[in-house]
């Protein structure tokens, strides 16, 4: 079955009792049992809920994994996955990692003895050079947030295998429609499902997806023991959002390509970061591993006054945190997604105070361009 069909028919069977096309929201905490020795498939909803299971199976299938786990937020997915490691373990992490991930890695897990080296992950040599005897994993984003840097995921996974490490990839910007890291040899795919997977800016959720059965068992243990699960209503909404993933991504991406080209030609835009532009340094690497550049782009404006004018004057796109919704969202990484990162660390990573991130939604691209044009005018 092709991707678009799997989105509609792959997630779960039609309810055999009623014929309903949509899975019921199983708003229950517990399940009555028939036998003392053999419990049914469901016993307690933290351990397993049919609605959550339908969503988990759908995401696992789309990523080409054996199992997916749904969490109460993208950060809960990341934190739960990091519980696979032990004190003294070391991780090599891409340097412009999402601010929330930076915060848990350095502050929360740092206090529990996990150590981290941040590297420019566009260089496989830099990744390899950071590996130590106690290194257990490579943690990547490709494209990264907010500078859309590209890591050669096949190459990184090959290095990881050579050293016996796990490769973890936050693939939020891509979704399995555009990139499937498990097929490239990576071990764990992480998602903020809040973004393109759900796609309607109305749910907070996260996923971890794996292929290896043993790793799946370990993550299943952590999901149940830590219990940072996704509730049934949010599972149902995410399943609903997933059905339109392909049509949403295609349209948003088409608009993003157009807007990126327009911005690149604009005299008051210093630089555009978007892997769909041929002069992007990661263009070739991205083309080798993904089916498209996605719908998130960042750009550097000529000065702070213009940045402020754009963010505060925008009407078609929302000036807000988050991305990946049907609505275009303009955000300001220095004070939003990367506010949790100390200013010096931010500056070193190129996240300046004139950098703006645009998540392109489903509005007409010409309308969005007209609005940008108006706001970027002189005066």
């Amino acid at each position: 079955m092709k991707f678009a069909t799997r989105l509609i028919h792959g997630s779960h069977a039609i309810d055999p009792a009623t014929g309903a096309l949509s899975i019921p929201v199983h708003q229950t905490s517990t399940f009555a049992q028939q036998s003392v020795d053999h419990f049914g498939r469901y016993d307690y909803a933290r351990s397993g809920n049919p609605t959550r299971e339908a969503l988990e199976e759908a995401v696992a299938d789309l990523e080409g994994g054996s199992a997916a786990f749904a969490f109460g937020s993208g950060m809960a997915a990341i934190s739960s996955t990091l519980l696979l490691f032990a004190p003294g373990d070391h991780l090599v992490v891409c340097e412009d990692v999402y601010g929330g991930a930076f915060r848990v890695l350095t502050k929360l897990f740092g206090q529990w003895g996990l150590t981290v080296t941040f590297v420019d992950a566009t260089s496989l040599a830099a990744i390899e050079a950071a590996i130590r005897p106690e290194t257990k994993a490579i943690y990547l984003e490709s494209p990264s947030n907010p500078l859309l840097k590209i890591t050669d995921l096949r190459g990184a996974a090959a290095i990881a295998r050579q050293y016996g490490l796990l490769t973890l990839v936050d693939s939020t910007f891509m979704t399995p429609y555009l990139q499937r890291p498990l097929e490239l040899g990576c071990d764990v795919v992480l998602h903020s499902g809040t973004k393109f997977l759900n796609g309607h800016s109305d749910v907070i959720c996260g996923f971890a997806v794996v292929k290896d059965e043993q790793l799946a068992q370990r993550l299943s243990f952590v999901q149940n023991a830590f219990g940072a699960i996704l509730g049934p209503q949010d599972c149902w909404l995410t399943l609903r959002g997933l059905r339109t993933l392909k049509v949403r991504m295609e349209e948003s991406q088409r608009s993003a390509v157009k807007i990126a080209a327009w911005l690149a030609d604009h005299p008051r835009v210093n630089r555009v970061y978007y892997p769909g532009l041929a002069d992007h340094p990661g263009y070739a690497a991205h083309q080798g591993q993904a089916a498209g550049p996605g719908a998130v782009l960042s750009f550097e404006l000529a000065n702070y006054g213009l940045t402020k004018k754009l963010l505060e004057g925008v009407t078609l796109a929302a000036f807000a945190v988050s991305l990946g919704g049907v609505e275009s969202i303009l955000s300001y990484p220095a004070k939003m997604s990367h506010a949790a990162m100390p200013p010096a660390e931010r500056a070193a990573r190129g996240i300046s105070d004139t950098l703006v991130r645009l998540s392109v939604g489903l509005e007409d691209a010409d309308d969005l361009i007209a609005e940008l044009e108006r706001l970027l005018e002189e005066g």
Partner: protein
Amino acid sequence: MNIATTAVQIGLEWDSRTGAMTVPIYQTATFRHPGLGQSTGYDYSRSGNPTRQALETGIARLDSAARGFAYSSGMAAITSLLLLFKQGDHLIVTEDLYGGTYRLFEQIFQQYGLEFSYVDTSDIARVEEALRPNTKGLFVESLTNPLLKVADIRSLATFCQSWGLLCIVDNTFLTPYLLRPLELGADIAIYSGSKYLSGHNDTICGLVTVKSPELAERVYFHQNGAGAVLGPQDSWLTIRGMKTLSVRLDRQQENALKIARWLEQNPQVAKVFYPGLENSPGHDLLRSQADGFGAMIAFEVTDSALVEQLLLRTELISFAESLGGVETLMTFPAVQTHADIEPAKREALGINDRLLRLSVGIENSDDLIADLEQAFTGGPA
């Protein structure tokens, strides 16, 4: 204001625009900013969502707390709180602890270098003996699961204050309607909100209340950082459930006392654990610190063969994990809630293959007793 009144008021002040009696379900991930460096007070729903906040404010009021926090499960609440500690810290913990908490401590946090001593926290001398130079916290269940032992929260809180330990009380079995740990001196109270607070066996959620604003800031950091938050629909359902907390618990306690007395008279029952019985070891202590005895009963039958008979023959009473809902549930702790505790240890604690746990609901008590009676006398299932 009486607790029952406070519970009914939750969420009422929220929608001044429409006058709606209930807080809207803010099914949103993010919030639009009015300007650069400006915020409506809401930025991103993991960091704060108005529906979740109504629930958090509500539970904080019930517990006289500085702040409340809602998590995606009771276990997520406990995990998020344990992040307050660090490698090498030691905690003193109630010995007949909920199996999920025990599993989390032993299989996840021990690996992260946290140390645990399990003691009978109903005996303060045992708690004092367990103190070490690196002890940083005490984790007690106000009524233990499943044996319903009673901890002296006031004395334990005083002990914690004098040694600078965080006093954390899992108050799931009693709820703020019956016992308010922070008013007795504890620093933090924890709830599996899936139980009495939500009360309808339809939501998985965890709640935390914190006494001091400084400590609350640290708890908030981890709620937002680790992100194990409760969604808006489940937040709304929990608020809805909390509005009937008092009437549900009143009826549940009434039923529980009748059933406990009936079980006591039953020759096929060897022991009944219910602190509402005058001869129960924790009865007077619980009376001195709580407004009731709850609606959880554990009982030991004379013959292990009766266990399966009771679980399968009862018709009104469902055989299912969990507790605290309007429906009466029966659980077999040794294989359900406490399966993760090693068999020898379980046996030593009294969680044996003859012990059953009953979470009494709001059905008519005569019907419940008749159901138990027919299950006891009806022979093997």
